[in-house]
């Protein structure tokens, strides 16, 4: 007998008698920010998940229309995905450069690649570490933060900021890299690779961890593409797609590296473990790219191509770049004035999150935590 209660979820679905609605968040340890999940539960089994966001909405798009010039949007782009500010800066700067049709000097391209890949490692370290916390293992988190600290030190010596850099400008960079940076970055690469192995020993191949993540939250490749998932989320499902290779920008085509995809090693293809391992292996690939870029960095002036006045012709452009979370798109419309007419940010975390309720029906609460963690959301970017 199925009886319904006079209570409805926010999508208008009436509750059955055995069900209960519980709010996971906005203040909850494992929603990675101020995400609220309205979870319909039958005992420990998740019947339905309805994500609610907007708690961190800071009107990025409206602000962009009200700046006095294009350059001023960059600090706001910084604050979208606050764990990968470099990548966000680059995405926006690239969009405006393509709109202006300017080329940047090779030294700038190389430094951008180095910074973006360092940032990718830093961001993946947080994703991997907090995923450990979600699974109840606290130690990997602090190990990851210890290594991330080194990267932040590198950023700090470059531009003075540790989290929000405003470093990549339209047409150039705010500073050249300081003397000694190359050596320190090389030393970091050397120091970091053994730590990945250590992390794998502690967490990745831990039986309990594998049991908790393998076969959980399986995202088939066709669903992933239908929901336009990107980044490790899509690659975890076995789709070899990386914008750095497939829609090239910067100087990524000059380096040798691989696109890591999930292979379903521990369970079904596209489960949480696959998404996790893609991130871990991507860190190794990033180290590879950084090492090559550091060896080949050309001389030059990083500010020679900075435009005096940014006033693109009327037109529009959609530019996408690969951030740690996936495809970050900027759709910039110019009306010929000094401010953007419209900036739409296609945030990868926002899009990746939308598939979550699809893949988490029928799992348990603990699995829901595993799935949210494996999506690797940053609420600053989801809400913009």
């Amino acid at each position: 007998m199925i009886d319904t209660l006079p209570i409805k979820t926010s999508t208008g679905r009436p509750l059955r008698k055995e069900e209960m609605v519980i709010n996971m968040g906005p203040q909850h340890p494992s929603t990675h920010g101020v995400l609220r999940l309205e979870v319909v539960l039958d005992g420990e089994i998740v019947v339905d998940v309805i994500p609610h966001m907007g708690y961190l909405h800071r009107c990025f798009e409206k602000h962009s229309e009200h700046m006095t010039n294009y350059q001023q949007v960059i600090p706001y782009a910084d604050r979208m995905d606050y764990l990968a500010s470099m990548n966000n800066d680059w995405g926006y700067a690239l969009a405006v450069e393509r709109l202006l049709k300017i080329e940047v000097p090779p030294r700038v391209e190389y430094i951008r690649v180095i910074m973006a890949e360092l940032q990718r490692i830093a961001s993946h370290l947080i994703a991997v570490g907090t995923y450990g916390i979600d699974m109840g293992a606290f130690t990997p988190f602090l190990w990851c933060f210890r290594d991330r600290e080194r990267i932040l030190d590198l950023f700090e010596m470059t531009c003075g900021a540790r989290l929000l850099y405003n470093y990549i400008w339209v047409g150039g960079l705010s500073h050249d890299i300081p003397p000694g940076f190359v050596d320190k970055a090389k030393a970091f690469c050397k120091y970091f690779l053994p730590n990945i192995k250590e992390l794998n020993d502690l967490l990745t191949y831990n039986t309990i961890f594998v049991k908790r993540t393998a076969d959980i939250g399986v995202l088939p490749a066709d669903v992933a593409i239908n929901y336009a998932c990107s980044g490790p989320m899509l690659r975890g499902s076995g789709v070899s797609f990386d914008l750095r290779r497939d829609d090239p920008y910067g100087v990524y085509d000059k380096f040798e590296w691989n696109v890591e995809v999930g292979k379903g090693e521990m369970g079904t293809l596209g489960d949480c473990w696959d998404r996790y391992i893609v991130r871990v292996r991507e860190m190794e690939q990033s180290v590879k790219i950084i090492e090559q870029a550091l060896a080949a960095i050309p001389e030059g002036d990083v500010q020679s191509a900075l435009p005096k006045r940014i006033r693109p012709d009327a037109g529009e452009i959609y530019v996408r770049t690969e951030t740690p979370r996936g495809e970050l798109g900027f759709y910039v419309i110019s009306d010929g004035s000094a401010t953007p007419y419209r900036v739409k940010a296609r945030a990868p975390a926002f899009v990746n999150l939308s598939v979550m309720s699809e893949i988490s029906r029928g799992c348990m609460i603990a699995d829901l935590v595993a799935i949210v963690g494996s999506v690797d959301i940053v609420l600053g970017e989801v809400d913009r």
Partner: protein
Amino acid sequence: MEDIIKNALEAIPVLGHSLANLLGTPPGVYVVMAALPLVFILLYALVTLYMEMKVSAHIQDRLAYMYTGWHGVLQPVADILKLIQKEDTIPAAADKPLFILAPYLVFIGTYAGFAAIPFSSMYVGSDLNIGVLYIIAVSSIVVVGILMSGWASNNKWSLFGAMRSAAQLVSYEIPSALAILVAVMITGSMNLQEINHFQDGGIQNWLAFGGPLPIAKKLLLMPFTLTTFFILFVASLAEVNRTPFDLPEAESELVQGFNTEYSGMKFAIFYMAEYANMFLVSGVAATLFLGGWGSPFGSFMSGPVWGVFWFVLKGMFFVFLQVWLRWTLPRLRVDQLMYVSWKVMMPFLFVCILAVGMILSF
């Protein structure tokens, strides 16, 4: 519900009175004897708090407390002082009497268990002839307290934690009881002091290594007793809600589980009960399988005072193991937890019991 509490409260003085009559000893002695474990628990909780922080910090490449006293040794004291001063909030919609009662009940369940634990050949709170049974029974009060706290908090997360906790404690009591049964079968006694005396004479006589039996029997028993001991240790981890079985308070899933709504001193009592429980299960494991207060070197360094030293050392070793595991392992899921108990531990234990029984009967 209130009637039940009222009746229970009325019954307690009667019970105490009859006990005193029964034993014919001045009550003051009992008070002193009963207070000793409490003093121990308080001191031990401070030490373990410090140890847990330092061990976890060194596992994680940090330093932990460094400023309050030498290497922060005074920090646990400061923590307790802070907790005492904190505002003690009770949610408006909570079931107030139950909410207040719950932490004390949890602590009573643990503290009562200490009564039957032999700290040394001269000191045991109550030399019960069914000590083992008593500890199993009395530690179940903890479940009632936890369920009470979860229900009374009027918080869905707390309720989840409490329900998980009840399911977990009930299912893990069975493997630990079965594991204890193995020790009882070999020693032929349920009195913990007698079990302890049975293992006198050094490390070779400990039950984990087969006990003081003829060498052939001993060697046959050893694989089974070691397995049982290992299972008892793992089951005890689950009984004290430590990682990898810390589901009732899994902070990444259930915020803080059954004690989400607690603050100040009530929270501190939960915390202390958890630490005390850690030592209780460690003490039981040490008494049953590792000779309790017995010195590992036979008569060398043995005696009532050395007994306390050895017992606390063994207990603390297991507490250290629990801390170590906590900061190393991830957490199991509910169904996996049940799977481990019912489908892995129980068959192993049945085999062990059967084998031990057959070996002993020859």
